[in-house]
């Protein structure tokens, strides 16, 4: 397991996976406070902008900056959570490296778990850098937020992304095609979107984690989304367990 994890982490570094995830999340993380602060000025400076449009925009503040940050990370993080792990299992099965590895004394659960942990670490590094950047610029441009609450927001964002990433890995365990693996994650994302439209279910879905985190970071007193937390953790565990079962039954 340690050897497999080391290999996965080294691969994340050498294949620039870590760099890409960190760069994308950090860029869009920084864009949150920066766009909120400078968008009115930008609109004002542009020619042919209808008069009064800039006035329609709410006055920039830390709360808006955090909301923008959360929106960016949730959206682009979800896209990365589909694209980055889609080849982790499916690609290795299709190329034949999985056969070479699994003919050695390696458990299929360890093979899956190493990939899950390494991808989680990659996303954690990306969210950490994005969070640090967004926290710094929000403080610099608006006001300094409660660091603990902002950290909690990022932890919840990370858990949300790990859930999507786990489903994509599960897709990779089921199929040999990377496209099918990403499709599984995308289908899950769409499914959650549809379920989220049902008011009574919304509080039980991973998206509620993001709303909870946003409220915390904005200093609002709101209901903690414990059911959503339980659902998300349950989804991650279910994806790993089912992925392991699928791999065990499979011929590589």
């Amino acid at each position: 397991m340690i050897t497999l994890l080391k290999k996965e982490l080294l691969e994340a570094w050498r294949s620039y996976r870590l760099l890409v995830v960190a760069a994308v999340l950090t860029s869009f993380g920084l864009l949150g406070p920066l766009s909120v602060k400078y968008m009115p000025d930008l609109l004002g400076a542009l020619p042919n902008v209808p008069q009064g449009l800039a006035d329609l925009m709410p006055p920039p503040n830390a709360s808006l900056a955090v909301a923008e940050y959360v929106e960016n990370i949730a959206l682009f993080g979800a896209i990365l959570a589909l694209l980055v792990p889609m080849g982790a299992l499916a690609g290795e099965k299709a190329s034949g490296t999985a056969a070479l590895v699994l003919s050695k004394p390696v458990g299929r659960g360890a093979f899956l778990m190493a990939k899950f942990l390494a991808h989680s670490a990659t996303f954690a590094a990306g969210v950490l850098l994005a969070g640090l950047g967004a926290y710094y610029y929000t403080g610099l441009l608006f006001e300094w937020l409660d660091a603990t609450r902002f950290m909690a927001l990022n932890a919840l964002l990370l858990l949300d992304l790990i859930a999507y990433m786990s489903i994509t890995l599960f897709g990779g365990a089921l199929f040999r095609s990377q496209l099918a693996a990403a499709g599984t994650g995308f289908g899950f994302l769409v499914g959650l979107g549809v379920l989220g439209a049902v008011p009574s279910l919304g509080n039980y879905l991973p998206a509620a984690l993001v709303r909870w985190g946003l409220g915390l970071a904005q200093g609002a007193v709101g209901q903690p989304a414990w059911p959503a937390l339980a659902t998300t953790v349950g989804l991650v565990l279910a994806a790993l367990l089912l992925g392991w079962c699928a791999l065990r039954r499979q011929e590589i």
Partner: protein
Amino acid sequence: MSAVRIEGVRKLYGSVAALDGLDLAVEEGSVFGFLGPNGAGKTTTIRILAGLARPTAGQAWVAGIPAGPESAARRLLGYLPEEPHFYPWMTPQEFLADFVAGLFRMPPREARARCAELLERVGLQDVARRRIGGFSKGMRQRLGLAQTLMNHPRVVLLDEPVSALDPAGRRDMLTLIGELKSQTTVFMSTHILDDVERICDSIGILRAGRLLALEGREALLERHAASALEVDFDAPPEAVAAWAAELQKQPFVAGVELRESLARIRSDGEQGTLEALQRSVLGSALRVLRYQVARPSLEDVFLRLVEG
């Protein structure tokens, strides 16, 4: 104890039987050549032994331990697929000394020493720190062989180890495989008969998932010793070809190969066949320079068994 044992193994893919009641035993310390045409079930057998596939029925053992996806037998074997794929961003040294050795939980010092020894043996010591992504097919195959040996395996499973190589690469690889004889049991599938004839001690011939023959190389060739005849004519090749075409219609003739005026005839090996052939040669009215009952090549035996 047999290094490899297979009993009653059936493997179905839908309604197609890739293996149909395969029984096989390979002695320790031998180089076993597993022969068969494409689709005979050679790769399926090796994948079952390597724990990558499960038989539909029956059981296989490696070094006395049942083979399977989570089997401890994997500690005792080395497996080289037909076209081995590696992580292109790794170097051979990282792949062998860190990754493969780590999977076998080898102590780091032992892993480094074994890696250096194997890289030298397969001639990759000068590229030990180069990325595998830039390697040629031959280099990958040699690295593949090195990774099968990392754990001092009791059994090495090689699936068509030389089929993708050029003649020089093939020669080098076969030399390496031949050298393993004293250290481990080699179970090698191939459809290149010359290679088997060169390095294998025992041979199994598979067709459509069934074993047609299983014995030592010499015994196999000896048993079919009467089945080939070489006749060198002092006649135009066209005349020889016309005679060969007539001869091939005879039921006791399994095949005729012509090289200009030299004919190599494979018979069905039944009693009286050689006499019948002799009569045919004499009746051809062609002048004979040389007439010889030939020791059959493995190809003769293989074609006779597989096509018969």
